[in-house]
């Protein structure tokens, strides 16, 4: 992919054009727009960090303090968030819910994707299409009937209401991703094992799954992030403060009447983002491959 600009650059130089001219053109057409776009994309995060560590005196006084910098960094907002609000509860809830729904979804998706791609039972291609269509059903049109169901099942205000409903968007996504991944594993390997007398379950556990580990990591990380970020179900199905998840708790509990405590709001936004960002930073490539794998085909 780098070969193109390479050739062009070499061709330019070869023709004896002004090297500095092309360098400044490259700056104007490439580095400058890229820099501006990156600045816009990253500024809100910088603003989050700066606000989190600013004492209130600086936060609301732009005349005396440069708003872009923290003169006297403080931990008071983080301290308030951790010891005077239910934030630690929300963190634990979000973690439990995300991990459980991710594992439930991964298990059912592995089975489903293997069946659709490799067992190829009667009608499996239609089921594959149905899974893709299920992927397109937005939570915004499901939350009302789901809240009615959650009430009737007696799950309202419990972790289970979310652990059981998050797989509705995780399973189609993971299945679709893993189907694509299983397709890349040579079928011959499984045929050999079949001839040697291995059962289907043995093949899945000992041959296909070990080879599909990168796909499983991709799907797992993405599913975890999606559950961590979910909002509308958590907002609708949970009512008591200590059972909330981070996104819901931050927006519903940290605002007291008309007084916005921007410092602790930004601290919540920052600390609530840290786990997913850390996970993301360790597995960027898996993350990207699941993002792009999901739209392939």
């Amino acid at each position, binding site marked *: 992919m780098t070969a193109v600009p390479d050739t*062009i650059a070499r061709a330019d130089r070869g023709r004896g054009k002004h090297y500095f001219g092309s360098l400044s053109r490259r700056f104007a057409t490439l580095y400058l727009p890229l820099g501006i776009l990156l600045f816009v994309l990253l500024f809100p995060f910088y603003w989050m960090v700066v606000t989190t560590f600013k004492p209130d005196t600086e936060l609301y006084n732009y005349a005396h303090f440069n708003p872009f910098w923290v003169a006297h960094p403080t931990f008071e907002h983080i301290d308030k968030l951790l010891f005077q609000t239910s934030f630690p509860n929300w963190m634990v809830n979000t973690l439990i819910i995300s991990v459980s729904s991710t594992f439930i979804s991964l298990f059912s998706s592995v089975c489903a994707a293997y069946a659709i791609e490799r067992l190829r039972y009667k009608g499996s291609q239609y089921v594959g299409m149905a899974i893709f269509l299920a992927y397109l059903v937005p939570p915004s*049109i499901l939350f009302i009937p789901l809240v009615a169901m959650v009430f009737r099942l007696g799950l309202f205000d419990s972790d289970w209401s979310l652990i059981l409903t998050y797989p509705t968007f995780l399973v189609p996504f993971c299945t679709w991703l893993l189907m694509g991944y299983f397709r890349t594993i040579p079928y011959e390997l499984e045929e050999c094992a079949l001839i040697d007398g291995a059962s289907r379950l043995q093949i899945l556990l000992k041959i296909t799954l070990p080879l599909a580990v990168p796909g499983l990591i991709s799907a797992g990380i993405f599913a975890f992030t999606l559950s961590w970020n979910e*909002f509308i179900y958590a907002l609708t199905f949970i009512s008591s403060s200590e059972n909330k998840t981070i*996104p819901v708790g931050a927006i519903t509990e940290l605002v007291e009447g008309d007084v916005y405590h921007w410092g602790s709001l930004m601290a919540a936004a920052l600390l609530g983002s840290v786990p997913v960002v850390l996970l993301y930073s360790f597995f960027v490539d898996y993350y990207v491959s699941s993002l792009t794998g999901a739209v*392939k085909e």
Partner: protein
Amino acid sequence: MAVETHNSDRLAARTGRRLRDNRDWLGALFMLPAAAILLVFLAYPLGLGFWLGLTDAKIGEAGHFIGWGNFVSLAHDAVFWLVVFNTTFYTVVASVVKFALGLYLAVLLNERLPFKSLLRAFVLLPFVVPTVLSAIAFWWIYDSQFSIISWMLIRLGLIHRYIDFLGEPWNARWAVIAANIWRGIPFVAITLLAGLQTISPSLYEAATLDGATAWQRFRHITLPLLTPIIAVVMTFSVLLTFTDFQLIYTITGGGPINATHLMATLSFQRAITGGYLGEGAAIADAMVPFLLAAILFSYFGLQRRRWQQGSAD
């Protein structure tokens, strides 16, 4: 007796083996967990949603069948039509800008650059961070008294008073659209970048040798080859934008005077805050035709263009 047991054991073993090797039976078994989840918590609620839209159900009350009553009253509801306008405007503007800027960013990132993978990792950050949490940051950036944007513009001498971003209907509309674009660019850019990387460099070399300009290379090589992936990416983007809930709920709550309410937030307000489940479900149902139209338009529209280009050659 002993022989019989022996026989039935053998029979059971044989049936067991046959079932274990039968694809259809095994397939059904493997599908069971996923199918159970999707049937109970996706297919059934989808149907229940349509049914609720035809009833006057309230929270904690089953409600009675009232036919098209909810839809008739919505058709006479000025707020509903304002919200339909808002949602369409929001979706169209945000999707067009996200596509343009996302594609631009993808093309820039496809150039020869130092620290490319690091850059790519940073670009994707807005997509990774929970939407509500970054929306809170936008809420603070748009604050009427302490907006950093207003402060910068005043320092630069471009304006003289702080902009009331979220207090004026049109300001608020543009503000939430900007936040949505910010949130959506990384997805478009990174997926299109993956598409760009599959285009063979030799095509560009050939075109360069034939004297094609950069724009011609983009217009006649990049764009046609990228069309299928653009179709899928934009279908997803349109779908997510049309059904958006989190940004609006966090930043404006639908205000001022319903100027930024989208169909999803209005249905939440009527169904959960107001307690009229039936009416809220009817609003959610009303999104379905728009969604189908959006999917068909962005998907088949772009697919056909690819087909036409293919047949023209």
